[in-house]
């Protein structure tokens, strides 16, 4: 257990040294700038606009941070040989992969917590009328989207190079976010090819819009843990499958 915990801690620490809080600070600065401009314009749904900009920005920033960190932890470690030195100790590859992924998960959690701390200070200062619990939950759900993206990078990174891993994860994230839109679009036509029928079966499984809850905060369907649970469980299931596949490839492939 000790090496496992140490691997998690050191994976997290190595990401911390990547100046991980810089994107958050940049985004917080932009948020302050945008809100200042919007307050000058006198827009009525001021609070909603600020929240949705913050949510969208954090979502996208987090995805790109995950792509960079995830690929560094597995692909770069493979290409630079860091994995080789660590696995030459006869430490099980499965545990190494799981601990490294958990290190990424902790780093991403600290990313969202840091943003929420800045967010809390900012809304307290501005005295916005934002439904705070819903907003916090919506921000927190982004963590699961990032965990899926991280699992995708680990899956591709277990057998492919960095470029393939990042590109593959990026494409599948986009597909997961646009899945409901795409399936509603293809379902209306009369001509249903086999591909479309198969897609309609797969689409609900690869649909992460339930985790992107920025609209729910203002539409009136109040968010709650119970409402978010199916989406979270689906995310956990997807992560388990992806990490399971990553472990399989990482165990069977040569490291060189």
């Amino acid at each position, binding site marked *: 257990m*000790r*090496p496992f915990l*140490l*691997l998690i801690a*050191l994976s997290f*620490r*190595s990401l911390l*040294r*990547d100046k991980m809080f810089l994107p958050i600070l940049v985004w917080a600065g932009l948020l302050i700038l945008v809100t200042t401009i919007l307050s000058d314009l006198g827009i009525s749904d001021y609070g909603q606009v600020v929240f949705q900009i913050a949510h969208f920005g954090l979502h996208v920033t987090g995805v790109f941070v995950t792509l960079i960190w995830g690929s560094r932890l597995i692909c770069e*470690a493979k290409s*630079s*040989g*860091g994995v*080789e*030195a*660590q*696995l*030459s*100790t*006869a*430490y*099980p590859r499965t545990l190494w992969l799981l601990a490294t992924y958990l290190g990424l998960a902790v780093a991403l959690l600290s990313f969202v917590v840091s943003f929420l701390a800045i967010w809390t200070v900012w809304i307290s200062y501005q005295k916005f009328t934002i439904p705070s619990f819903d907003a916090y939950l919506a921000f927190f759900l982004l963590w699961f989207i990032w965990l899926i993206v991280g699992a995708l990078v680990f899956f591709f990174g277990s057998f492919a190079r960095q470029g393939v891993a990042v590109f593959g994860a990026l494409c599948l994230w986009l597909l997961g976010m646009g899945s409901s839109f795409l399936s509603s679009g293809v379902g209306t036509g009369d001509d249903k090819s086999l591909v479309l029928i198969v897609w309609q079966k797969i689409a609900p499984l690869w649909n992460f819009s339930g985790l992107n809850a920025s609209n729910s905060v203002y539409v009136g369907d109040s968010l709650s843990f119970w409402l978010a649970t199916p989406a979270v469980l689906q995310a956990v299931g997807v992560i388990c499958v992806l990490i399971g596949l990553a472990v399989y490839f990482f165990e*069977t492939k*040569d*490291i*060189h």
Partner: protein
Amino acid sequence: MIELKNLGKTYTKEVGKKSRPALDAVNLLLKEGECLGLLGHNGAGKTTLIRILLGLVHPSQGKMFFDEKPLVRKARQKIGYMPENQQLAARLTCEENLKLHYSLISGRYLSHDLACKALQEVGLLDHRKKKVSDLSKGMGRRLAWAMANISDPQILVLDEPFSGLDPLGRIELHRWLGEKVKAGKGVLLCTHEIKLALSLCDRVQILRLGKECFQQDLRSKPLSDPAELESYFIHEDQAV
């Protein structure tokens, strides 16, 4: 102590390329208190052999034994490895790399004092808080050296250990290897440097294009002229 029998490895064929075994039916025997020099040109199969031994690459054929029993993962914990290049976690410090390596091998934490002692032995104590990415090549080699030795392994596998070391470091590593062999450790030394191999090794084995092409016990049959070994190493037509 370590025996490799009929070891072979063919990497998956790339489209349009003819596959050639990286390692073809190689046998190797490393005994206690012996330094075996594994020589060969670039791409001869030395690193592939080491990686198979360490469990990083899956062999296509052959068997491996440790103390006459099949080589299992647990036994690999008795092998200390010094990789060829600066193949360490670049964003961690020297001390963190050492602690992580020790923990992965033994399952225990390495205390700060012991880590400092190990780093002092290789002249890196003052650089213990430096990240690996900020180290020079020679310092990286010294750290890899400390990591190979941290658990006092029975077998040392060293891939081009002298490359990048300054003259003082080379002398120190040379002396240290001699002491390890005297203490009964088995040393597998991969190198291009023939003179160094001759000064350190009890036996030499040469690989060419993945095949074993020459081996000699230098204790019972010393080479009269080092150039003789060089000729086996270089000239294809003189190889056995």
